[in-house]
């Protein structure tokens, strides 16, 4: 490991969130400010201590507006990460790099939106006439929604490895069973069965049923990153950033990477996985729990393969309900995931992994030393390994 390695240099010292709902009743900027303040307070700091901000290119809350509302005096670092949900873990990577390089002392990453009550993804009604160039190849053919983009990508994988929609159902069942015991989850106390999954209506046949698709949510999440050294002296048990990675590969597009050699995996996540293992000097066996971005269930199976938890094509057999549930070998999405808890563009996956490291999760996994979290898939993406001090 070289001196330049980011591993162990920074830590998550605070997490904050609003309630997760279908109609927040307030502006995205207010959600951002509320979650940032909650995260700063959780870290035992004051907004004046914050000197760096990171968010998504898609976020509507300007850094300077957040800083003005919070009364931040001097901001020394700000950056944004592109590619929708692929940005989530990367916002922590950027924050950790800024801290490690001395660009800032305390960086807050945030994401807040009214994705349900405001501008819903895949809703093109407000965009006619300003279709982005890449969409001009798809919109005329009725390939208009994230679900449809993902389904067309996932079909060759299913064909090659004999994966059926019923195999995806196990991911939905696991997520919803974890959500059922999480009071913050939209689907609190509402678990589902495989039969429920198989009888839910097709969204994109024969790949995605309703229960394969994550919900849409309103809410905000913020996360405080500082040096590992400083985090040690703050009130919360630090979640050390043991590895942080971004990944993209040749011939990709935002969500329609149909031109790569073989559509049998998520090569961007392969890049992220290799970087995470190399940076951390850990292996999949060292990870006690993972939050695998679950906007659509097929990509959870592919992530298990790209991250090395099982071999290519084997996830459909490896990903049993027992193995992925609390008490199993690799409990995933212990808050209920984006399917069960809320869709805050993956940021609520990072907070859940932090709670697992702290030992304060509602569905706590025993003896968590290292936990993995991924960002949006089917897009250029990112990932983190967080560890106990």
């Amino acid at each position, binding site marked *: 490991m070289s001196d330049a390695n980011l591993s162990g240099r920074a830590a998550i010292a605070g997490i904050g969130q609003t309630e997760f709902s279908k109609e927040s009743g307030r502006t995205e900027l207010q959600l951002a400010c509320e979650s940032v303040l909650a995260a700063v307070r959780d870290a035992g700091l004051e907004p004046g201590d914050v000197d760096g901000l990171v968010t998504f290119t898609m976020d509507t809350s300007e850094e300077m507006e957040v800083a003005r509302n919070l009364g931040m005096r001097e901001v020394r670092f700000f950056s944004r990460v592109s590619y929708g949900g692929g940005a989530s873990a990367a916002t922590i990577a950027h924050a950790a790099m800024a801290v490690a390089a001395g660009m800032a002392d305390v960086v807050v990453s945030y994401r807040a939106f009214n994705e349900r009550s405001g501008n819903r993804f895949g809703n093109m009604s407000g965009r006619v006439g300003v279709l982005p160039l890449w969409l001009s190849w798809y919109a005329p053919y009725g*390939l208009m929604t994230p679900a449809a983009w993902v389904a067309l990508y996932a079909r060759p994988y299913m064909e090659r490895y004999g994966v059926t929609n019923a195999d995806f159902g196990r991911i939905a069942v696991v997520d919803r069973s974890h959500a059922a015991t999480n009071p913050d989850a939209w689907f609190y106390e509402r678990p589902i069965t495989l039969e429920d999954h198989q009888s839910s209506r097709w969204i994109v*046949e024969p790949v995605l049923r309703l229960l394969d698709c994550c919900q849409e949510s309103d809410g905000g999440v913020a996360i405080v990153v500082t040096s590992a050294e400083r985090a040690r002296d703050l009130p919360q048990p630090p979640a050390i950033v043991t590895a942080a990675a971004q990944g993209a590969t040749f011939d990709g597009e935002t969500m329609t990477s149909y031109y790569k050699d073989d559509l049998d995996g998520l090569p961007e996540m392969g890049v992220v996985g290799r970087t995470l293992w190399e940076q951390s000097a850990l292996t999949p066996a060292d990870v006690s729990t993972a939050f695998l971005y679950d906007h659509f269930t097929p990509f959870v199976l592919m992530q298990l393969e790209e991250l090395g938890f099982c071999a290519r094509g084997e996830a459909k057999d490896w990903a049993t309900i027992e193995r992925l549930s609390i008490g199993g070998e690799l409990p995933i999405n212990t808050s209920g995931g984006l399917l069960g808890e809320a869709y805050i563009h993956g940021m609520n996956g990072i907070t859940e992994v932090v709670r697992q490291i702290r030992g304060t999760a509602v569905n706590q996994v025993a003896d968590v030393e290292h936990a993995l979290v991924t960002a949006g898939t089917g897009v250029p993406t990112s990932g983190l390994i967080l560890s106990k001090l």
Partner: protein
Amino acid sequence: MTADTQFFWDGVKKHRLLIQRCTACRTLRHPPRPMCPTCHALAWDTVEASGRGTVYSFVIPRHPPLPWFPEPYVVALVELDEGTRLVTNLVGIPHDAVTMGMKVRVRYEHFDDDLVLPMFTPEDAP
């Protein structure tokens, strides 16, 4: 549409399916772009595709219904015999008769306001 993609839609209007080709190393590419990723040449021309290919992937979007599409409709990713892929609709075949790897050929569909779209139909369709 931009200067990089104009030729494709101009070709389609004349019922010609054009693929961008690097004039230096002859590599084909789609969707069109200004630079060859293999040799970095900026010069390019086009070749006319045979219009034949295979179904590399396909799905039937069910929800939300789109008012200007009949239900059900098939969205396919067709791999042309020349090697590039494009997203299209399959027409002239019941949605439940489409299979992965099926051989297809191009068919030009005309819509209002001068729009022509290349779609695909089974190779042996009339």
